[in-house]
């Protein structure tokens, strides 16, 4: 086999830059992560399982993944509408609205956390009317979901928007000229074309919601068994100097999110390879 490690290039500096990249990557990212995995493995399988299967931990996993899933689904739906709105309708001030979508990226999570709480608390701007209607938002899973929607929305919009922009208008024109209705064109032509980016957007917003802490912790209420997310439980364990417990919960979270991401990645490459025929 004539496989070489690297293709020849006349440009200099490969060894130096790659060496530095690997060193920095190793020191900042890989070494600390290795600590997590190796410390976690000290627990052993049974120890790990013991921590994970604790009802309080299980409840936090259920809550975290459940609300994250709900938020990701809502974001995928509304994100698609917002992306369509931003690419297909034209009105003055569109670029301004377009940059607002990035707000959750730019706003520090603690700020969004206390702001969302102020909005949705029983005395808050929206929380009060909702409370009067009998719906309690803050300090319930609904509040957690809202915070996760806030933090995950830009991921969907920013992955779907370019796909919609790059879509060839000819495709829609062909479909319509062949006699398809607007609705059929949307469902049979446009949606399948942007499906890969929709899946990616869903996965990114899901992953972000699972790990989110700052914007969730204020609105969550943090009642054990009911509104305690896994990230907070890790902190609680740390404050009790239960490092191994914290490590095990963290590992459990990581394993589950990586499995999810892997499945979504496969799904995504399957749906895009169908389009590209690779």
């Amino acid at each position, binding site marked *: 086999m004539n496989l070489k490690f690297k293709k020849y290039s006349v440009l200099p*500096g490969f060894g130096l830059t790659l060496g530095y990249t690997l060193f920095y990557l190793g020191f900042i990212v890989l070494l600390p*992560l290795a600590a997590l995995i190796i410390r976690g493995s000290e627990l052993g399988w049974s120890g790990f399982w013991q921590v994970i299967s604790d009802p309080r931990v299980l409840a936090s996993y259920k809550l975290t993944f459940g609300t994250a899933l709900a938020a990701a689904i809502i974001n995928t739906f509304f994100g698609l509408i917002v992306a369509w*709105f931003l690419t297909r309708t034209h009105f003055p001030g569109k670029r301004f609205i377009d940059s607002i979508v990035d707000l959750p990226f730019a706003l520090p999570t603690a700020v969004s*956390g206390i702001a969302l709480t102020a909005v949705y608390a029983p005395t808050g701007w929206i929380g009060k009317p909702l409370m009067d209607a009998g719906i309690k938002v803050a300090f319930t899973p609904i509040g957690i979901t809202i915070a996760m929607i806030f933090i995950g929305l830009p991921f969907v919009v920013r992955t779907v928007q370019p796909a919609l922009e790059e879509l060839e*208008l000819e495709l829609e024109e062909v479909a319509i000229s062949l006699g398809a209705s607007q609705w059929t064109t949307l469902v049979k032509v446009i949606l399948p074309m942007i499906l890969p980016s929709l899946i990616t957007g869903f996965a990114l917003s899901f992953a972000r919601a699972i790990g989110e802490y*700052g914007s969730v912790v204020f609105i969550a209420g943090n009642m054990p068994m009911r509104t305690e997310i896994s*990230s907070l439980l890790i902190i609680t364990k740390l404050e009790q100097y239960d490092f191994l417990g914290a490590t095990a919960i963290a590992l459990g*979270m990581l394993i589950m999110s990586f499995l999810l991401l892997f499945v979504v990645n496969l799904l995504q490459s399957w749906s895009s390879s169908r389009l590209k025929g690779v």
Partner: protein
Amino acid sequence: MRSKELKRGLQPPLIVNIIISTVSIIFLALFLVLPLVVVFGEAFRQGVSVWWGSIAEEESLSALRLTLFVAAIAVPLNLFFGIAASWALAKFDFWGRNLIITLIDLPFAISPIISGLIFILLFGINGWIGPWLIKHNIQIIFAVPGIVLATIFVTFPFVARELIPLMTEQGSEEEQAALTLGANGWQTFLRITLPNIKWGLLYGVILCNARAMGEFGAVSVVSGHIRGETNTLPLQAEILYNEYNFTAAFAVASLLAFLALVTLALKFFVEWKSNKLETV
């Protein structure tokens, strides 16, 4: 005769367009704009002087200083790394390239709390290097070095992931041309590559800086919340909030929200600038 421009592609009925626009605007207003308005509303509820009083407190000022200090270390380090990594990964084709790109993205996929936890496991009392550090009287966890490390970790990918696709797309023909004209590696980088990536670079730095100043979860784990010493602005806002000192909490939060608005404005400017360059 007035010529009417023919619109292309799908033309949903007007009512559908109206529904889509209304839903989008209400959704964005409710979920994104309202919280921002609330921050400023609550911060200035009792007037500017109360707001200023909360900011000018020694604890808040020291939190501001620490936040700026941490960003001033983390951003340049990650900037330097981003340039080196994108040069190696975008200009060369080698085995394992995609694996490294995925590894660079790792900190994005990891919960901020776990990002803080890993440094505790490494440098904490029970950590790998912890006992050695105690023996030599070096404190990393619950001190500024820990905050800096955690911040570097969570902001690690920003510059690199902005530059790698950009430089891959630009290819290396211009660099090759410079080399055939007798330029050396440094001249090629400084005179050709750097001007071509400057907007992408700035974009990455802006995002990196926003996250570095605003990071909460990871910093919260390693900081120890020592007032006036290891509290950054977001941590200070949290403490004030938990003490039911809402006006002060929102005053501090308004500083960070202002930072976010500046970030968005800069981002807008850079996008506009680089779009303009592309379309000319």
